[in-house]
């Protein structure tokens, strides 16, 4: 926490850095770049684009559900929308967004010049646009995109057209990209820390990403296996998931959720990391219980591999199976609780200020905890028997995915934008963005708890009349939420184009290396010689 901003590890002045984009300008710079900051930027813009595409699909869903009856989209197309909304948001928007953060932040936070495998880094990004293209193209195939839900359950997948195959290949590419990115992150963190940056001195963001990267390496191949088995069932009669050929449709669900539950934490842990940077910065107080945060994160990661079948309480498991998965699942509440308590204790007796990043981090804390509680409700077998596959589940996972991951991503963007661009965003507009997002988010999803309890199944294009009011409120909230995100785009563009110049230390409480040992904006190459840590 030196008050002096030194430039060691930064051989070039600001004026020189335009000459170092690998020799190319224009589009070729972005295609050939091996720079972690360029690649981080690519990841972030890509994920924003996908967020918009997935968002439009969500609005289409909410439009159809505004009133009972079939208004705009036939049921087949509606199913395609729900499927692609889920896949695009999970694999195209949220996951790449956090890889973008990892690319930008990890080298700067641990005092490294770049990521360990620079060309691999380029490749792991450039796989993504092709995967996204396959997903979007599937809409234009005969029979359209698959209408099976993002979980791609067999044997419904066998009935789909060629769009299903494109989706399977897209999942393969996305998985490859994630695995390569994760290997890069693990190697960078384990080998490229500056002298004195021990593992237990790393910023929490690096810890959460290290653990996330291990989860990805373990879980993504399992997903690739599941969809490949679906592919061969479709075309080569392998009958993995077909009882008539000696297979079992439920086997698909076991394999999928063995990936699927760690996936939940793959999305949540980096979000925890961002929030663990933001809350101490705006509380002007160190993160409470650093060591217990590391242990809690590891405990969550390990538990995430033994709870998968809580997504499958209604497939007809034996009672022992139900009880085991219920007990294991509720245990996750303990380390998650520790994290929430630690964040609140970090704020306790701090010196708080409420700039936009802090607002989003607190929004995260509040709503993610709410989503955690509904998660506990869902974990209990008898209650889940009632709410499984209803809107209650939809509400629950949007509280952890949107109010959890997305809010944390917004917090991170506002927090690091000055460091990345050297310019400040408009604080007033940022706050508007937060409050609109917060209000409309709850308008969409809080009422969906009621819909689920009252018995509205998910993934239906039309519904009985008793669900009408809540659906109307939810739909109106959705359009408000969508529009608010255009405001976010405006705030970011305005900051980049003509934002006020950021001071060297825009947040006085932020004390990781990128703030203390690098100028603002961060130079193109971060630490050409390692910083010295006492």
């Amino acid at each position, binding site marked *: 926490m030196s008050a002096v901003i030194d430039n060691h590890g930064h051989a070039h002045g600001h004026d020189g850095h335009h000459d170092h984009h690998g020799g190319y300008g224009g589009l070729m710079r972005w295609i050939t770049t091996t720079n972690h900051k360029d690649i981080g930027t690519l990841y972030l813009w890509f994920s924003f684009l996908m967020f918009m595409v997935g968002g439009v699909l969500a609005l289409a869903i909410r439009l159809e559900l505004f009133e009972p009856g079939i208004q705009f989209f036939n049921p087949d197309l509606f199913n395609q929308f729900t499927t692609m909304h889920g896949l695009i948001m999970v694999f195209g928007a949220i996951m790449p967004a956090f890889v973008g953060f990892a690319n930008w932040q990890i080298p700067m936070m641990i005092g490294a010049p770049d990521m360990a495998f620079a060309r691999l880094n380029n490749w792991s990004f450039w796989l993504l646009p092709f995967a996204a293209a396959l997903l979007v193209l599937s809409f234009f195939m005969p029979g359209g995109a698959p209408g099976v839900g993002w979980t791609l359950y067999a044997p419904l997948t*066998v009935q789909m057209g060629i769009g299903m195959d494109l989706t399977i290949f897209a999942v393969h590419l996305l998985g490859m990209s994630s695995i390569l990115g994760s290997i890069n992150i693990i190697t960078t963190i384990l080998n490229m820390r500056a002298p004195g940056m021990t593992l237990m001195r790393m910023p929490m963001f690096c810890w959460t990403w290290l653990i996330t990267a291990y989860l990805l390496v373990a879980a993504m191949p399992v997903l690739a296996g599941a969809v490949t088995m679906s592919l061969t069932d479709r075309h080569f009669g392998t009958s993995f998931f077909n009882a008539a050929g000696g297979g079992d449709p439920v086997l698909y669900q076991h394999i999928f959720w063995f990936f699927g539950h760690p996936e939940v934490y793959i999305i949540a842990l980096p979000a925890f990391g961002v929030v663990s940077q933001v809350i101490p910065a705006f509380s002007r107080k160190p993160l409470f219980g650093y060591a217990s945060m590391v242990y809690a994160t590891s405990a969550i990661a390990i538990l995430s591999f033994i709870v998968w079948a809580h997504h499958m309480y209604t497939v007809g498991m034996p009672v022992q199976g139900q009880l085991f998965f219920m007990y294991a699942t509720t245990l996750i509440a303990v380390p998650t609780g520790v994290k929430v308590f630690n964040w609140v204790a970090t704020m306790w007796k701090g010196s708080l200020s409420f700039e936009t990043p802090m607002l989003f981090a607190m929004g995260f804390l509040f709503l993610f905890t709410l989503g955690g509680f509904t998660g506990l409700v869902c974990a209990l077998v008898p209650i889940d028997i009632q709410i499984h596959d209803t809107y209650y589940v939809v509400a629950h996972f949007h509280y952890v995915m949107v109010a959890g991951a997305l809010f944390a991503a917004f917090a991170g963007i506002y927090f690091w934008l000055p460091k990345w661009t050297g310019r400040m965003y408009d604080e007033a507009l940022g706050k508007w963005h937060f409050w609109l997002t917060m209000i409309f988010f709850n308008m969409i999803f809080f009422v969906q708890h009621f819909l689920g*309890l009252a018995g509205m199944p998910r993934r239906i294009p039309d519904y009985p009349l008793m669900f009408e009011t809540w659906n109307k409120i939810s739909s109106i909230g959705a359009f408000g939420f969508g529009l608010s995100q255009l405001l976010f785009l405006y705030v970011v563009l305005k900051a980049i184009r003509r934002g006020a110049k950021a001071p060297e230390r825009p947040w006085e409480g932020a004390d990781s290396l990128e703030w203390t040992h690098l100028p603002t904006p961060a130079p193109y190459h971060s630490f050409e010689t390692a910083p010295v840590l006492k």
Partner: protein
Amino acid sequence: MARKFVRSFATWALALPGLGFSGLALALEWNLRPAGSKIAEDIHSLHEYVMILCTVIFIGVFSFMFYSVYAHRKSKGHKAAQFHENTTVEILWTVIPLLILIGIALPTTRTVIAQKDTSNPDLTIKVTGYQWKWGYDYVKGEGEGISFVSTLATPREQIENKAPKGEHYLLEVDNELVVPVGRKIRVLTTAADVIHSWWMPSFGAKQDAIPGFIRDLWFRADRTGTYRSQCVELCGKEHGFMPIVVRVVSQDEYSKWVGEKMKLIVAAADDPNKQYTMDELKKRGEQVYAKNCVVCHQANGKGTPPAFPPLDGSQVVTGAKDKQIQTVLNGVIKDGKATAMVAFGPQLNDVELAAVITFTRNNWGNKVGGEQGLVQPSEVKALREKK
């Protein structure tokens, strides 16, 4: 329609803030449906218990956060303390949640075990999920042998907004599942094509119907009445349109219903060896078509290509009889995988199949007529047995 929609959207968007808190007082659906069985009651109280615990903890934790927000502000000149560890507190907030979880797990476990106990039923019914209807077979107990298919009864015009929607929109069927009150009913679930899920919220009973496997659930209804629900596992295009309706009746009424149903079965038994006339078959075929074929192939026979091809002008429908009979009997397998054209052999009897095939060969622009246009049930029966 578009203008009406926009107006409705705008009215609601404007009215919402006004509704505000008073809206909460409205009698909206916001909790679990009224319990109709002991298990459902247990689930209700479990849910309430957990919600109360969660609410108390939530308020507890966040009162600390909001107190901080109120009191520990930089703008108020609050100076940050620098503590960042406290082993006692950290152990406490690991152990206390663990104890709370045990307090939740104990009563929950009891309900899980009760819910799974399907032994000694009074009546056993097999439920088969089809795309997109439910088949019910009474396999053991009073009513054994009764078997029917239960399909959405809401007219298409209501779904397409061409007619006002009825009270039980999307929750009404042609044949309700009828069970006696106070008896333990065991439901075996399975499916013919993809995974479906049979759910009756009022009884706290939900079980996926998995093709090729049999799973089970049980319920014992407390009161007579009609209970409604829907399929809850995405099963394709018409997933939202396969309701489940259970009518719980007194033991006397149930016995009466079984008696009538049995008489009806005997009377309505179709004789596959009888020779039918073209008009008889076309008339019957039209009904069969409306129940089984119309959602994909459409009322005008034009289908929705490419997934659901037209029948009007189809070479299969206007070509050789045997080819079409086999197609409908056994479904279409393309490149070794099943298509949306499932085998109707297991779902329809010979007379129904003969009727619907005759109907398609002589309806819309299809005018096969004569000997080639008329399919007798005996011909279907012969091909079915040959297979």
